[in-house]
């Protein structure tokens, strides 16, 4: 059975690689070549990453609340939390 690889494409210089889908391939080289044919037929990218799907650890949606909700009541982490007089400039 062909292993699955996750494919990431950098659409242009200066931007991060972004997940676009997956391919089946025997090895990394073949995965890159497959990813090029499947995901970049119209100049969608200037660089590719392929990662064995099995190597990715994902967070559990069931833990989403525990992981992400503590940030919700920490509004003081945002600049808009702080009131400064209108005539204060460059801040």
């Amino acid at each position: 059975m062909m292993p699955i690889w996750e494919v990431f494409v950098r659409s242009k210089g200066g931007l991060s690689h972004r997940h676009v889908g997956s391919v089946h391939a025997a090895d990394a080289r073949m995965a890159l070549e497959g990813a090029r044919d499947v995901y970049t037929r119209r100049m969608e990218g200037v660089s590719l990453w392929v990662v064995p799907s099995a190597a990715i650890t994902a967070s559990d949606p069931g833990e989403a609340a525990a992981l992400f909700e503590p940030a919700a009541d920490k509004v003081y982490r945002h600049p808009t939390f702080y009131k400064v007089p209108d005539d204060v400039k460059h801040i």
Partner: protein
Amino acid sequence: MYTVELSKENFGDGEAVLDAGRAAAFEARVAADEFIEPKDWMPEAYRKTLIRQISQHAHSEIVGMLPEGNWLTRAPSLRRKAILLAKIQDECGHGLYLYAAAETLGVSREEMTEALHAGRAKYSTIFNYPTLSWADMGAIGWLVDGAAILNQVPLQRTSYGPYARAMVRICKEESFHQRQGFENMMQLAHGTKAQRKMAQDALNRWWWPSLMMFGPPDDNSPNSAQSMRWRIKRDSNDELRQKFIDVTVPQAEILGLTIPDPELKWNAERGSYDYGKIDWEEFYAVVRGEGPVAKDRLKARVAAWEGQAWVREAALAHAAKQTMKAAA
């Protein structure tokens, strides 16, 4: 989508009773147009319906390469050949995006391939018609890809994230398919008498099967309500079919070709075209695998899969050897 939702089973709601809380939360998220992602909890019936719908769609893209591949070596110019090759390659890509989306639901590529080859999985009935002349390459792009676009555009907002994202990519590429087909038809329609005849003949053969691509009439499409609620189907079959007719008739007029339906008539009151009766007996016969070239299509797929098994095996053997060498 190319695929028409067929061979639906009825799923019991057993697990929904056991898990009423999660099911209610799921339904609420979908109703609020949120996206469901692979690791999220989902009802088993949703998962199964999606696997069937996405894999049928993927099979349609893959089998859909065959009727066009038929004319690849006989394209009338290098320009036409390059265009047709690029379109066929896109369809292969569409199949792969969709297989990848289905795999996130826990079905393997092998299982899907095996279901297609064993005749258990369906694909769009349209690909069980033969491509008899070069004009069919124009008619398919114009009508079949045109119908596919109308089916697919609403699915960019479907509730299952990986499916929706695959549809966004696919829709971006389909517009080229339709335009190259129309341009091909236009060239033939403005060509010699024989070319015009060829174009008209292609329209005559592809018109009705294209209308059937939207699936059975609404009153005969039993699971539509659930699929609509789950946002894995977003418009009714008859609505989309009517939309297709309304946009395509003026295009045929520009080509100077006649749509093979004597009952086709503008209805000013409805602001739409009235059209003749569709031969649903023919449709169900094709669904049952009685299409003119259904057997050839599956034979070609199986031959390709089996004939290339040695390539897959060699690639895996090479990879294993490289890994061993690196470890040594």
